[in-house]
């Protein structure tokens, strides 16, 4: 490359190629996407966040919450389970279907329905089992569930997909998990008072929490004739001196409204799972999932 013209032409081509590929095409694909329909229902998704929650997104942005919290659930795969709902009238036929499916006949399999017959099988086996059982007069259902450690932790029922962010500006995705993922915090912890208390004194609400307190979102003020209905109920060393109260500012209330609006718990075509969800009891219940009395 001896000539400057050639040099800049090369640079221009390389820049334009990546620009077209990673800006133009995603804009055509995602930027112009329409709202999706929730699988099995008729609701459009995602709905715009209500006014206060939309303001709260700006509080989240301004204070850089996304530097410690991600807002994306990772999914590692999908599994299918077959559930026997009812055995029908001809139990002998159902039991012979069990034999055909290589299922254990111990422990009286037709008692205590509905129960999981097959767990984590592939599509063809699930379909075959369902058909065999239904031919025998039983009623069998297939449950689809997302798998992965995030989902096991109870952080969501499925992986996040591009459509989840269609109403957000900025998207506030986050690339760190110094704190827990917040994609579904509104489902996991729907109590606004919990959130306000947690913002004021995280370690008093979640044991051993390493989150810094956000006291600047609250105001300590003298109680006038009547205490404010918004004032936090605080005990012990957190309580302000008598005659004073701790009141959340508008920013704190907006932020909590935003957190409560964070929900991606509906099945979409591109992120299928069957509702009602598997009874994924979050193992890590010492996180934000802990309700506080």
């Amino acid at each position, binding site marked *: 490359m001896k000539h400057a013209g050639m040099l800049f032409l090369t640079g221009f081509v390389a820049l334009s190629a990546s620009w077209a590929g990673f800006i133009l095409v995603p804009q055509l694909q995602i930027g112009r996407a329409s709202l999706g329909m929730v*699988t099995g229902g008729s609701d459009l998704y995602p709905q715009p966040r209500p006014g206060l929650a939309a303001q709260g997104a700006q509080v989240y942005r301004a204070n850089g919450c996304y530097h410690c919290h991600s807002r994306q659930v990772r999914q590692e795969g999908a599994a299918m389970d077959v559930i026997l709902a009812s055995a029908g009238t001809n139990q002998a036929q159902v039991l012979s279907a069990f034999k055909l499916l290589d299922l254990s006949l111990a422990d009286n399999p037709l008692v205590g329905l509905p129960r999981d017959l097959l767990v984590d099988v592939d599509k063809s086996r699930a379909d075959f089992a369902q058909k065999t059982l239904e031919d025998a007069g039983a009623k069998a259902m*297939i449950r689809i569930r997302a798998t992965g450690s995030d989902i096991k932790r109870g952080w969501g029922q499925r*992986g996040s997909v*591009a459509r989840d962010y269609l109403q957000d500006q900025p998207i506030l995705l986050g690339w760190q998990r110094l704190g827990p993922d917040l994609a579904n915090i509104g489902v996991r912890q729907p109590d606004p008072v919990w959130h306000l208390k947690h913002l004021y004194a995280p370690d008093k609400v979640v044991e051993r929490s390493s989150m810094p307190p956000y006291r600047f979102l609250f105001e300590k003020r003298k109680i006038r004739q009547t205490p404010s209905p918004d004032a936090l109920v605080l005990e012990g060393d957190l309580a302000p001196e008598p005659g004073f109260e701790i009141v959340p500012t508008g920013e704190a209330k907006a932020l909590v409204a935003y957190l409560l609006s964070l929900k991606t718990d509906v099945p979409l*075509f591109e*992120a*299928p799972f069957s509702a009602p969800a598997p009874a994924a009891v979050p193992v890590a219940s010492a996180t934000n999932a802990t309700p506080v009395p």
Partner: protein
Amino acid sequence: MNDSTASSFAASSGRDTEPPVGTAPVPMWLMVLPILLFFGGALYFDWTAAWFNPVVHAPFTSLKQIESLQPSTGGDRLLIRGKVVYEQVCALCHGVDGAGKPGQAPTFVGSEWVLTDNVGQLIRIPLQGLAGPITVKGQEWNLAMPAMGAALPDEDLAAVLTYMRNAWGNQAPPVTTEQVTATRNATKGRTQPWSAVELKAVQ
């Protein structure tokens, strides 16, 4: 201050010469590397990336895989779409349950007009409307229905008719978008609502 270091900093400034650039060739193995990476990358892309499909997200690798995971109930997109349209456009008079309303609109449940094999008849009703006496499941009606479906896209009209033919215990083959388009073209220009007698004459 270290004097020798200091002076060498300064002295070097005037003595810089830029040596010429050599023209050693790129080693053969390095020339092969892009080809290997390209083929490896293309294979990986082919396996995992679903060829630019906007709907496929990791961990899924193809549209087929996602389709196979759709719950069987409610998996039919046409029916879901039809339900949405029905509840927006039709349900006000005919009811969410399709049972109709006395003195307002006849029922769809088990209606011979809905389940007819001659779908051309059925499609014409929402396209231009229906007026005058009509018998539904042995009951006489004399009402006027406006052309509720005239403004709907063909896909939506097909979806809502398919939904009506399969909801509430009804069972009949779906109405396709092509059939709706054909009927719309065949009746282009007509603004008058149909009468039951005229519809019966439609083949």
